[in-house]
């Protein structure tokens, strides 16, 4: 009967009690931002940036610990579960729009800004007066050759192609893991979830290698004009998201090892797998528009 008191039903609204974690989160965010400001404005050494991320990690640990504990007690009903799901979906939508800003910048530069600098359309005068020798092409570091006279663009057929395979495969493995979870096959779930985050970390490692090549062999840097800017900001933010996603997959895997999740209720697993698919889809956009075309 004890579980009945917490039974998922629509008669009883669940309102969580107060928690110290949100205010810790606000303070952590503030510390992080102040640290970044102090570091960038040269008000102290690099150490001023450190407290923010540490506090943020502490907060994530504590907040998730609380929520996972409450979840394991079974006090979240189906309505709460639905709120969490919707929240996660809208959060992913906001992430899509964040990437949209950078894709927008890429398209604007390639379709409008660079051709205009080369004298296209009504912008002939800009080219004639400011940069008469500049011929528009992509990739480019602009008429001023910002970041060096020559550089090589990143090929789509090297690491990028391998990484595409890795990420697509990981999308498949996470789906197999999901089916296994719903079928109650814990062994297969553990295996395929582990495969997923291992693939994720492989992706990040290979991307690190790709960056190393870019800096040492291709003379391609963040400072290499608009091409370097869009290449590193888009792939960099994506790589950051893959890293976060892989860490989340790892945490979910550890929870699976502890026996968490049931075939019917496994919000965290689903949220992370949605996030993983989102990261996957963004990568396809990157592969096509940043590497390939």
């Amino acid at each position, binding site marked *: 009967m004890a579980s009945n008191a917490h039974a998922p039903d629509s008669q009883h*609204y669940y*309102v*969580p009690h107060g928690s110290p974690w949100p205010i810790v989160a606000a303070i952590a965010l*503030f510390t992080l931002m102040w640290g970044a400001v102090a570091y960038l404005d040269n008000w102290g050494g690099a150490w001023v940036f450190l407290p923010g991320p540490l506090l943020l990690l502490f907060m994530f640990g504590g907040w998730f610990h609380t929520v996972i504990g409450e979840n394991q007690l079974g006090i979240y009903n189906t309505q709460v579960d639905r709120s969490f799901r919707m929240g996660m979906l809208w959060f992913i939508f906001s992430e899509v729009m964040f990437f949209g800003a950078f894709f927008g910048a890429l398209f604007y530069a390639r379709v409008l800004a660079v051709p205009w600098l080369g004298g296209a359309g009504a912008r002939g005068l800009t080219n004639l007066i400011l940069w008469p020798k500049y011929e528009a092409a992509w990739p480019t570091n602009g008429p001023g050759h*910002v970041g060096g006279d020559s550089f090589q663009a990143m090929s789509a057929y090297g690491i990028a192609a391998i990484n595409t395979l890795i990420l697509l495969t990981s999308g498949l493995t996470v789906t197999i893991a999901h089916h296994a979870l719903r079928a109650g096959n814990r062994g297969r779930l553990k295996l395929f979830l582990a495969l997923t985050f291992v693939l994720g970390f492989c992706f990040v490692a290979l991307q690190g290698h790709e960056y190393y090549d870019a800096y040492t062999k291709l003379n391609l840097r963040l400072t290499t004009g608009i091409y370097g800017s869009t290449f590193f900001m888009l792939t960099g933010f994506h790589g950051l998201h893959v890293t976060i996603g892989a860490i989340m997959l790892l945490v979910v895997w550890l929870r699976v090892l502890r026996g968490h999740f049931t075939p019917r209720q496994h919000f965290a697993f689903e949220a992370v797998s949605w996030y993983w698919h989102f990261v996957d889809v963004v990568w396809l956009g990157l592969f096509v528009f940043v590497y390939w075309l």
Partner: protein
Amino acid sequence: MAETTHAHAEHDDHDHKPHGWRRWVFATNHKDIGTMYLVFSCIMFFTGGLFAMTIRAELFKPGLQIVDAGVFNSLTTMHGLVMIFGAIMPAWVGLANWMIPIQIGAPDMALPRLNNLSFWILPFAFVLLLSSWLVPGSAPAGGWTMYPPLTLQLGASFPMLIFAIHMMGISSILGAINVVVTIMNLRAPGMTLMRMPLFVWTWLITAFLLIAVMPVLAGAVTMMLTDHFFGTSFFNAAGGGDPVMFQHIFWFFGHPEVYIMILPGFGVISEIIPAFSRKPLFGYEAMVYATASIAFLSFIVWAHHMFTVGLPLSALLFFMFATMLIAVPTGVKVFNWTATMWRGSLSFEPPMLFSLAFLFLFTIGGFSGLMLALVPADFQYQDTYFVVAHFHYVLVSGSAFAIMAAVYYWLPKWVGRMYDMRLATWHFWLSAIFFNVLFFPQHFLGLAGMPRRIPDYAVQFADWNMVSSIGGFVFGLSQLLFPYIIWKCVRSGKRVEGTRAWEGARGLEWELPSPAPYHSWTTPPTEAMIARGAEH
């Protein structure tokens, strides 16, 4: 089974009201968080107001008297940022927190702890932004729109501005996610989408806009940050980028942003006019569709803010016509509000007075917006005081008046006491009259060619500037009445009897006792209650 649930609820942590600082710092109650948002907004309203008063004092007569040109630029920039992100947006989120759960029959917001976080990020964000006054080079001075290359040349305040914007953005996105989830998941049984009050509808659409565009702003300012510190070339033509690209990305955020600030106001007006006309809202469904149309159009009109930067002719034409299309759904709204009053039994309490002022003055702002939408005319108006007059008509007599109308409408429900109606009427007339003294002459100044964002001006503009400044001082001072009236109401207002503070008021909030209990709708409202509220 029902008994078990009941017994459980009684010894739950959340059933008693927490005391002391914990109640606010660890708050998960939507009413407490709503109150904090509103108090914060009020503080920011007067902070931004102080900047505005200094601006008007400097512009009282030609020449430089009070501040130097650099400080003047910081004042206009900070006035914009504080009013938009600190006063208006948090006021709407505060009202959403207070009203949405009790208007849809929900016990609280869907994600109460996230709600707490959304609020508490804000004071920290504004500490960060406002402390930029103290750093070398003083506060941001490149305009609230942060255009490069000017804003890239700021001093130590540059990263403070960027990270403060990031924090405000995170707060807005989390708050908006909470609103959407609350409305989609926590409506009481029987509260179908088309029975929701319009304030809930307009906020649902606003929240969607917020989630869609705040991340784009975050992207834009991130590019600024890397251009400034890490050598990227997004906004540097020498590297193949384009400073105009910032304007495109910024206004892709910025135009929906102006609807974020006004749509909840449309909702409020759509609640108040029927209540004081003692008639159901005319054309409820049309109002919903009009709001959705305005939200959709807001995504495809952004370049009307940049007609003079040298856009291709085809872009000028597209953005001009798309912008003028917005007049259609907005016209539907103005028509419906007017039709609601037609043959109604009208009375003119303060919420209705502010709503009527909204109707007239926002429409003037809409018309000047239509003038600005015309490309050839805009070539003349661009960056003049005409633009300043236009957006203050939509933001002050639009958004701010709607916020005041909302507070005067729902305050008796919040505190269970009635405010001093005579004093509030004084507040209204002083605001409405001196708002026009303040901003109407700015139309003339702009048409005569006075540029915006300048600390000094040609003597030909002297007379109307003096009139405008006088209007500004009286308008500013009369706003002090607002917190005084609220404080007096909370302390010693006359108690409100029964559930309805206004005889014509409809909706679930008026089915609750006044003041609304700390936890409301812990059991869903009945079908009869919902039906009474949804008579349209």
